[in-house]
């Protein structure tokens, strides 16, 4: 079975700081975790390669500071990469390293091919727009111009995430955290993206709301066949959602495999510690 991944990432590096003679030779292992004690450079993501296949959920786990969110920001073009390549298997981007495209082209990919849900809804929503206005904003960016169509789409999406339609004109800042997260998911889905990034989407939500969001994510996978990268430090969330999982530590992927295999037969020392810590 030769299956082409919908998203292929190769040797992604992201560093904060210039690097110095002490730390640029990464093989020499002069770093304290992923930090150079000599020049203060942080090697946030180091040589990460991964494949995301059509319709699958790929889990990314790791402790705080392991580089999970930086990885997501690189993939969503929120920040420039230091080195590395990524290709997206859609016809108009075949063979392109998308990290090398112009900012205009990157914006087009974000508008048409990507959706992103941040841990903090402030980053994904305009808190002073109405909820349906937030969705319309993304639809306009993706090329919609007809108000009646946008309104119909917005209503359908909000219904899908169980936001009562009589509140659709309200600003998300009036909503609870769980509702804001659901509006953010609706917005991320509005351009019907083949790839969706979810960064700690259930972190900080109470259990009951978390169950709702998990169910929603599974439903999106089932009904729409969208491929997702799900970042979480919560192994229980990853176990429920992800088909395959990668484990990050100090900016590197240290282990990957089928999710149940990573959790039940972890190979790396750190992954074992993580699994032993599970409640």
């Amino acid at each position: 079975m030769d299956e082409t991944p919908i998203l292929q990432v190769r040797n992604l590096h992201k560093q904060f700081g210039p690097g110095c003679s002490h730390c640029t030779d990464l093989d020499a292992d002069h770093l304290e975790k992923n930090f150079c004690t000599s020049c203060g450079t942080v090697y946030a993501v180091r040589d990460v390669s991964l494949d995301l296949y059509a319709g699958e959920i790929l889990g990314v786990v790791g402790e705080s500071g392991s580089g999970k969110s930086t990885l997501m920001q690189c993939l969503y073009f929120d920040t420039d990469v230091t080195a590395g390549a990524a290709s997206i298997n859609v016809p108009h981007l075949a063979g392109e390293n998308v990290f090398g495209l112009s900012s205009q082209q990157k914006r087009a990919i974000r508008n048409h091919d990507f959706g992103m849900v941040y841990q903090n809804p402030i980053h994904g929503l305009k808190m002073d727009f109405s909820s349906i206005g937030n969705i319309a904003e993304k639809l306009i960016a993706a090329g919609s111009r007809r108000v009646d169509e946008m309104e119909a789409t917005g209503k359908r999406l909000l219904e899908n995430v169980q936001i009562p339609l009589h509140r659709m004109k309200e600003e998300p800042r009036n909503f609870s955290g769980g509702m804001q997260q659901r509006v953010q998911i609706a917005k991320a889905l509005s351009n019907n993206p083949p790839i969706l990034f979810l960064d700690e989407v259930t972190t900080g939500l109470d259990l009951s709301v978390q169950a709702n969001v998990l169910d929603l994510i599974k439903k999106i996978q089932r009904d729409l066949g969208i491929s997702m990268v799900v970042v979480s430090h919560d192994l229980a969330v990853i176990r429920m959602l992800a088909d395959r999982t990668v484990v990050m530590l100090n900016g590197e992927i240290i282990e990957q495999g089928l999710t149940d295999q990573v959790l039940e037969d972890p190979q790396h020392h750190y992954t074992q510690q993580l699994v032993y810590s599970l409640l």
Partner: protein
Amino acid sequence: MSMLEVTGFGKSFTIHHLDKTMPAIKDIHFSLEAGEFIGIVGKSGSGKSTILKSIYRTYLPDAGKILYDSEKYGLVDLSRIAERQMLYLRKFEIGYVSQFLNVMPRTTCRQLVTNTLLEMGETEDMAQREAEKALTHFELEPKLWDSYPKTFSGGEKLRLNIAMATVKKPRLLLLDEPTASLDQHSKIKVREIIEKLKSNGTTLVGIFHDIEFMEVLCDKVYDMHPRREVGIGVES
């Protein structure tokens, strides 16, 4: 050709915080024709579940081969097959029932079985119909269908677990101690269910806590000590 052939199989566990490698099992050989049932016996800790989990790739095998005759891919070694292929086989060909039910929270019994079918690409109508059929078949009362399995009894959870695994009509079913912790009445029900699977042509590798129970159901037995296939009724 056999449906499943395990040869020279072994598995050990490296425990980093003890700086030790624990040998779990080695030199396991057995084979299974389509439609056959094999039971694995051995005392607690002898590695029975390790075999099942390795066939399902929940554990990464480190020696030997687990050859499986797949409908989709032909003859494959489950210990080396690509992850994506294993995911396909889990979805369409190989089922696994553990002693524990681990499912999406706050999802009804009916929805869980329906979702399994939707994930295989069935239509909503078809999935609903098949799910109801499976729940009826496994004798879960209709009054339970719209409640959450968190509140179910051990026997009900187990039957739901079996329903979720078998509704996919797997060619190969792995069953890990389906009757442990069940009362006599529930055991009889589970036995009837397993007998039904057999008459449907399912191939099965099972671990049964109850030897008598196993002997009634299985065509052959694999004994972990002295690591060989034995006939039914042979004292170990």
